[in-house]
C-alpha cells in the first residue's frame, strides 16, 4: 500500500519543513502546516479510535471542531497529557505524541469490539434498563461500568502550564474569518471602528481561501485569489486586531463573550517554556457579527461509520489545503452540489473518482456539467444501502431509490473504493446566536434552522453561511447589504462585485435513507461518538419519549464531546418524520456553552494556589508563625488553631491551653471578629431594631451581648456591642458573618429606615483585638497599665475604659467568652503586634498561654455559649437555643420579632439546644453524629451533635446537640449510633462549668 499520499503542488503546507511525530508509538512524518489528522491521512492512517459503546473502528471524518471520531490523547506526561483532543484541530509540531482512546489493548485489536456483536442486546437506555435493580447491587455494577466508560485519561499530576485571563473591549467583534467575516471586519475597520476578528484556525479565509476553481470568480479572479488580496489589505488596517487559533466558547447577554486563545498548543515542547498556554478572553463588544459558517452534514445509511468515510467537503480540504489524498479510489455520495466541487478538486489533483451517487433525480448545474465532461459516472436517484470493510471501507452497495424515497428498487451494484465522501447538505452554526438569546426559524426548502431576524437580540447580526447563505454570490451580497445597515455605512467597494458561481437547481433530503435490509440488521449511525443509531431514536419514540430533550438524553444522541454538531439535525429529522411533525414546530435541543470544550486551566486562569482566594492575616500573624501556630481557615482569615509545644498533638495542645486559661492566664488573638463602628443620633434606636434585646438604657461605657435574627426569627449572628458615647457604639460580629451583617444593616438603613440618622463603618481591619482571660488576667493588665483602676466597682464585668498602653491608645473591654475573668484590648492594628508582645512579656511570670480557635471553642462549650454557624444553622430561634432571656418582651418591634410566635416557631417539638454527657466520661462524641432513642427500625432521628470536646477542666467528655423537644428531655437517655458501636448519652443542661458565673469576678 502507498504510504505517501501527499501531492506536490501546494500553497499552504511548507514541504521544506519536515516534522516528526508519533502516533500510538509509531514514528511518522508530516509537514509544517499539517494538523495531526492531515498528517495521519498522508501516512494512509484512517483508523484512529474506537467508538464509545460498540468499540467499532472509527476514522477521521471531518477536518474541524465538529470531529466526532478522531479524538486522541496527546502526550503521556502525567502532568501535561491532554485527553479528548480533536486530531483535526491540533496543529502538528515536532515531537507531538498522540494515542488512540477508548480501546484496549490497541486500536487495531480492541477487546471491547465484542460489544459490536452484542449490539442487538445493547439498545438505547440499556444501562438504565439493566442496572436499575436490585438497587443494592449498584455498587457492584458501578466498578465495571465506570471502568468501561469515559473517553481518554485525565492527567494525574497538577497542571504545570500557565493560563491567563484578559478583559477585552471593542466596537465590533467579528466571529469567524471566512469570506463573510473578512468582508465584515474590513468594512467595520475601514469605517474607523475598533474591530476584533476571531477565528479558530491558524489562517484566515475559511473554505474560500482554497477554492481554486474556475467556476467561482470575483471580478474575474478566482475566488481564492481575490480573497487573498482582501486579507492582505485587511492585515494592514491599524484599528483591527486579528486573533487566530481563538475559539469563542460562549455568547452571553449584553454582548459579553468568552473566547479561548490558544497560544502554545501548536509549538514544540522547547518553544513553549515560560509562555502562557491559553488565554481566556472576556470580551465586551458594542456590536457582534456572527460569521461562524456552516458544517457539512453526513448521510444516514447502514454502516455509514467505517474508517475511510469522510465528509465530502473535508476530502476537498485535505486535497486542496493540505495536499493530502484521503484515498486513491474515492466515491462520493451526496444530496446536494457540494460533492461535485470535491470531485473537481480530486480530478484536478489526479485522484480517481469512480462514481458519484446522488439521491436527486435531476441535479444539473454548472458543476455537474463539468463533472460529466470528465467522464466521472453519476448515478442519479440512487442511494447507498450498505458498506463493507472493517478497519477501512472496501466497497459500497448502491441501489435505485423509489420515487417517494421510502424504498429501494431494482438490483444492487457493488463498487469498490478505499474512501467514500458523503454530503448531506449544510447546517448553519447557530450555536452562538442562540446562546445569546436569539430564536431560530426553520427554512423548509433546504431543511435548515437559521437565525430569525425578528428575534435577534439587539446589536448583533449573523452573516454568511451561519445565516443560511450557502452560495458565493448570496454570501457576499447579503453580507455586504446587512453590514451596511448594521454599521450605518455609506457606499463601499463591495456593493457591485462581478461574482460568478454555480447555482444549485434541485434539492432533495431524506433523513434516514432506505435499505434493502430489515431495520434490525442495519446500523445507520447518527451520533458517531456516542454510537447512537437511527434505530435507537425510533425505539425511544416507541417507548413513549416525545420531547426532543428526552430523546436526546435517553439515546445520548448529541451528548458526546462534539455535542452533536454532526448528528443533531438528523435526529430531529427522524423524530419529525416518525411522529409526523414539522421540524420547525419540533424545534432544536438547547445549544449551551461552550461551543467547543474548554480546558479547566483556561477557566481558572491564574486563580490557583494562593491566588484562589484572598488570604487575610491579622496584624499579629507573624508572631503566631514564629511561635509555631497551626492555622485554621475561617472564612478568608488565617486564625491560629492551636500552638503545639514539643511535638504535641492537637489534642494534647488544646488540653494544655484550656487548663492554663482557667488556672492562670490565656491570650487569644480575636482580631478577626467583625467590628462595625456605629454613629449618629439614632444609633440606640437602630440597635433596638436590629437586636432582640433593649439598648436604649445601656449606659455609656457599658457592653451588652446581642442576638441578631433574620425576619424569619432564626438566629443570624451574635456579638458584644459597647456604648462608647451618647451616639457612638462599636458592634462586634462573628468572624464569618462580618461582611454579611454589615450588608444587612446597610440594607435596612437605606431601604426600610431611611429616616434614621445612623452611619456604619467597618473597622475590622483597623482595630486588632487580644483577649486575656483567667484568674491572673487582672494582674497582667495591672502590670501593663499600672494607672488603670481595675476594681470591680470601677471596672465591672461588661464595661469598658479608654486607656493607654505606653503611648498607644486602647479600648479595654471587660467581657468574656470563656467564663473567666477577662479583658479585651483593642488597639490600632499597626500597634497590635507590639502590644501583644508586651502582654506576653507581662504575663510570663503567670505562664500566660497563647491559645487558638480550638481552645476557644472548648472553653466556651464548657460554659454552654453558642457559636453561630456551628451550633446554629439558620433553623433555630432564640427559644430553641434556650435563650428566651435575651428577647426584649416589652419591645414593640425588632427584626424577626413577629416570626417568634408564628404557628411553626412556637411548636414545642422543634429541635432545641441541649447539653449531652456520655455515660463513659472518656468517650468523645463526633460532631454531626445522630441522636436516636431506640435502635428499632425504622429508626427515628431526633437530632445531632453540634459541638463536642473532652473537657480537661471537668475531666470528662461534654457535648452540645440539637434534639427534637430537647428542652423537655433533661435527664433522658439517648443513643448515638456509630459505625462500630452505640454510645449511650444523657441530656443535660447546656452549661457544664461554673453554672453560677463565679469565675467572672474571680
Amino acid at each position: 500500500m502507498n504510504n505517501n499520499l501527499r501531492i506536490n503542488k501546494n500553497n499552504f503546507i511548507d514541504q521544506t519543513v519536515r516534522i516528526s511525530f508519533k502516533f500510538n508509538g509509531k514514528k511518522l512524518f508530516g509537514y509544517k502546516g499539517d494538523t495531526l489528522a492531515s498528517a495521519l491521512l498522508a501516512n494512509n492512517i484512517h483508523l484512529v479510535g474506537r467508538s464509545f459503546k460498540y468499540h467499532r473502528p472509527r476514522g477521521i471524518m471531518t477536518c474541524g471542531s465538529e470531529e466526532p471520531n478522531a479524538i486522541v490523547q496527546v502526550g503521556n506526561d502525567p502532568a501535561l497529557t491532554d485527553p479528548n483532543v480533536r486530531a483535526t484541530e491540533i496543529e502538528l509540531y515536532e515531537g507531538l505524541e498522540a494515542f488512540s482512546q477508548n480501546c484496549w489493548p490497541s486500536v487495531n485489536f480492541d477487546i471491547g469490539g465484542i460489544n459490536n456483536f452484542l449490539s442487538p442486546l445493547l439498545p438505547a437506555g440499556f444501562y438504565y434498563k439493566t442496572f436499575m435493580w436490585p438497587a443494592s447491587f449498584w455498587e457492584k455494577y458501578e466498578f465495571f461500568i465506570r471502568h468501561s466508560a469515559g473517553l481518554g485519561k485525565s492527567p494525574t499530576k497538577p497542571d504545570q502550564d500557565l493560563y491567563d485571563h484578559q478583559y477585552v473591549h471593542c466596537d465590533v467583534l467579528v466571529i469567524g474569518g471566512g469570506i463573510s467575516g473578512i468582508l465584515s471586519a474590513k468594512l467595520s475597520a475601514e469605517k474607523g471602528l475598533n474591530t476584533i476578528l476571531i477565528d479558530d484556525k491558524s489562517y484566515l479565509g475559511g473554505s474560500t481561501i482554497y477554492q481554486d476553481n474556475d467556476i467561482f470568480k470575483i471580478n474575474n479572479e478566482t475566488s481564492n485569489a481575490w480573497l487573498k488580496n482582501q486579507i492582505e489589505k485587511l492585515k494592514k488596517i491599524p484599528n483591527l486586531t486579528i486573533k487566530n487559533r481563538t475559539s469563542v466558547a460562549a455568547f452571553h447577554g449584553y454582548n459579553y463573550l468568552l473566547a479561548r486563545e490558544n497560544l502554545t498548543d501548536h509549538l514544540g515542547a522547547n518553544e513553549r517554556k515560560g509562555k502562557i498556554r491559553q488565554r481566556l478572553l472576556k470580551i465586551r463588544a458594542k456590536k457582534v457579527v456572527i460569521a461562524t459558517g456552516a458544517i457539512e452534514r453526513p448521510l444516514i445509511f447502514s454502516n455509514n461509520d467505517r474508517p475511510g468515510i469522510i465528509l465530502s467537503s473535508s476530502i476537498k480540504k485535505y486535497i486542496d489545503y493540505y495536499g493530502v489524498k484521503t484515498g486513491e479510489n474515492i466515491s462520493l455520495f451526496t444530496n446536494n452540489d457540494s460533492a461535485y466541487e470535491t470531485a473537481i478538486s480530486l480530478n484536478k489533483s489526479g485522484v480517481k473518482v469512480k462514481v458519484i451517487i446522488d439521491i436527486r433525480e435531476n441535479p444539473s448545474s454548472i458543476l455537474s456539467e463539468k463533472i460529466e465532461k470528465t467522464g466521472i459516472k453519476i448515478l442519479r436517484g440512487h442511494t447507498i444501502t450498505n458498506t463493507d470493510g472493517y478497519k477501512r471501507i472496501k466497497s459500497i452497495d448502491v441501489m435505485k431509490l423509489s420515487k417517494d424515497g421510502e424504498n429501494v428498487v431494482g438490483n444492487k451494484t457493488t463498487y469498490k473504493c478505499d474512501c467514500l465522501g458523503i454530503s448531506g447538505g449544510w447546517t448553519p452554526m447557530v450555536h452562538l446566536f442562540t446562546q445569546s438569546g436569539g430564536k431560530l426559524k426553520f427554512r423548509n426548502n433546504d431543511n435548515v434552522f437559521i437565525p430569525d431576524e425578528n428575534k435577534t437580540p439587539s446589536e448583533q447580526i449573523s452573516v454568511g453561511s451561519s445565516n443560511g447563505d450557502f452560495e458565493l454570490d448570496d454570501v457576499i451580497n447579503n453580507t455586504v447589504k446587512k453590514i451596511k445597515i448594521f454599521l450605518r455605512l455609506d457606499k463601499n467597494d463591495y456593493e457591485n462585485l462581478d461574482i460568478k458561481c454555480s447555482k444549485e437547481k434541485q434539492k432533495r433530503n431524506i433523513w434516514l435513507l432506505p435499505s434493502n435490509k430489515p431495520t434490525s440488521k442495519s446500523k445507520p449511525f447518527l451520533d458517531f461518538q456516542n454510537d447512537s443509531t437511527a434505530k435507537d431514536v425510533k425505539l425511544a419514540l416507541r417507548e413513549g419519549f416525545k420531547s426532543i430533550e428526552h430523546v436526546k438524553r435517553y439515546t445520548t444522541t448529541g451528548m458526546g464531546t462534539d455535542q452533536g454538531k454532526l448528528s443533531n439535525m438528523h435526529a430531529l429529522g427522524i423524530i419529525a418524520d416518525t411522529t409526523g411533525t414539522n421540524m420547525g414546530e419540533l424545534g432544536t435541543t438547547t445549544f449551551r456553552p461552550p461551543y467547543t470544550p474548554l480546558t479547566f486551566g483556561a477557566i481558572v486562569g491564574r486563580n490557583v494556589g494562593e491566588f484562589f482566594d484572598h488570604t487575610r492575616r491579622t496584624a499579629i500573624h507573624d508572631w503566631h508563625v514564629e511561635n509555631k501556630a497551626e492555622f485554621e481557615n475561617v472564612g478568608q482569615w488565617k486564625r491560629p488553631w492551636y500552638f503545639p509545644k514539643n511535638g504535641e498533638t492537637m489534642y494534647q495542645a488544646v488540653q494544655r491551653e484550656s487548663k492554663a486559661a482557667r488556672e492562670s492566664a490565656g491570650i487569644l488573638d480575636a482580631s478577626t471578629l467583625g467590628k462595625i463602628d456605629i454613629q449618629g443620633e439614632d444609633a440606640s434606636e437602630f440597635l433596638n431594631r436590629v437586636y432582640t434585646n433593649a439598648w436604649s438604657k445601656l449606659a455609656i461605657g457599658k457592653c451588652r451581648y446581642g442576638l441578631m435574627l433574620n425576619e424569619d426569627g432564626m438566629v443570624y449572628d451574635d456579638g458584644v456591642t459597647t456604648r462608647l458615647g451618647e451616639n457612638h457604639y462599636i458592634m462586634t460580629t462573628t468572624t464569618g458573618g462580618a461582611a454579611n451583617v454589615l450588608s444587612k444593616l446597610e440594607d435596612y438603613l437605606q431601604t426600610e429606615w431611611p429616616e434614621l440618622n445612623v452611619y456604619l463603618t467597618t473597622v475590622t481591619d483597623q482595630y486588632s483585638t487580644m483577649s486575656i482571660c483567667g484568674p491572673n488576667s487582672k494582674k497582667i493588665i495591672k502590670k501593663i497599665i499600672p494607672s488603670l483602676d481595675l476594681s470591680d466597682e470601677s471596672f465591672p464585668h461588661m464595661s469598658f475604659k479608654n486607656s493607654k498602653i505606653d503611648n498607644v491608645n486602647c479600648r479595654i473591654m471587660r467581657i468574656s467568652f470563656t467564663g473567666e475573668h477577662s479583658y479585651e484590648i483593642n488597639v490600632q492594628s499597626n500597634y497590635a503586634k507590639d502590644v501583644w508582645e508586651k502582654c506576653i512579656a507581662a504575663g510570663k511570670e503567670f505562664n500566660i498561654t497563647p491559645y487558638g480557635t480550638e481552645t476557644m471553642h472548648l472553653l466556651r462549650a464548657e460554659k454552654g455559649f453558642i457559636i453561630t454557624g456551628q451550633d446554629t444553622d439558620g433553623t433555630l430561634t432564640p427559644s430553641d437555643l434556650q435563650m428566651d432571656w435575651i428577647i426584649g418582651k416589652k419591645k414593640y418591634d425588632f427584626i424577626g420579632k413577629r416570626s417568634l410566635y408564628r404557628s411553626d416557631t412556637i411548636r414545642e417539638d422543634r429541635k432545641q439546644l441541649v447539653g449531652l454527657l456520655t455515660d463513659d466520661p472518656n468517650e468523645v462524641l463526633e460532631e454531626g453524629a445522630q441522636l436516636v432513642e431506640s435502635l428499632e427500625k425504622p429508626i427515628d432521628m431526633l437530632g445531632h451533635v453540634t459541638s463536642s470536646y473532652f473537657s480537661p477542666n471537668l475531666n470528662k467528655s461534654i457535648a452540645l446537640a440539637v434534639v427534637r423537644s430537647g428542652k423537655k428531655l433533661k435527664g433522658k437517655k439517648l443513643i448515638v449510633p456509630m459505625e462500630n458501636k452505640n454510645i449511650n448519652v444523657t441530656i443535660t443542661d447546656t452549661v457544664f462549668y461554673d453554672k453560677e458565673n463565679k469565675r467572672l469576678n474571680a
Partner: protein
Amino acid sequence: MFIINCPYCGERDQTEFSCGGEAHIERPKQPTELSDDQWAEYLFMRKNIKGIQFERWNHIHGCRKWFNVVRDTSNDKIHAVYKMGERPPLK
C-alpha cells in the same frame, strides 16, 4: 452577564452588584398586628415573573448603595434604574 447603570456611579459590570430580590415590598410598620398569614405574605411570598420584574440591586463592590431596577427576566434587558424612594417609572 449584563451591565447595570448604577444611579450613583454609572455603567458597571454585573459582577459588581448583588441582587436583593423583588422590589417594593415594604416591611410592615406594625408587624405585631398582623395575622400569621399576613406576616407570611410579607416574609415568604415573592413573584418570579417571566417578563418585566421590579428588583432591588446593591452596588456591593462599588458605592454600596441600594437602588431599584426594572428588568425583563426573559432577556435581561434593563428598562429603568431608579433610586430608593423614587417612584417606579413604569408601574
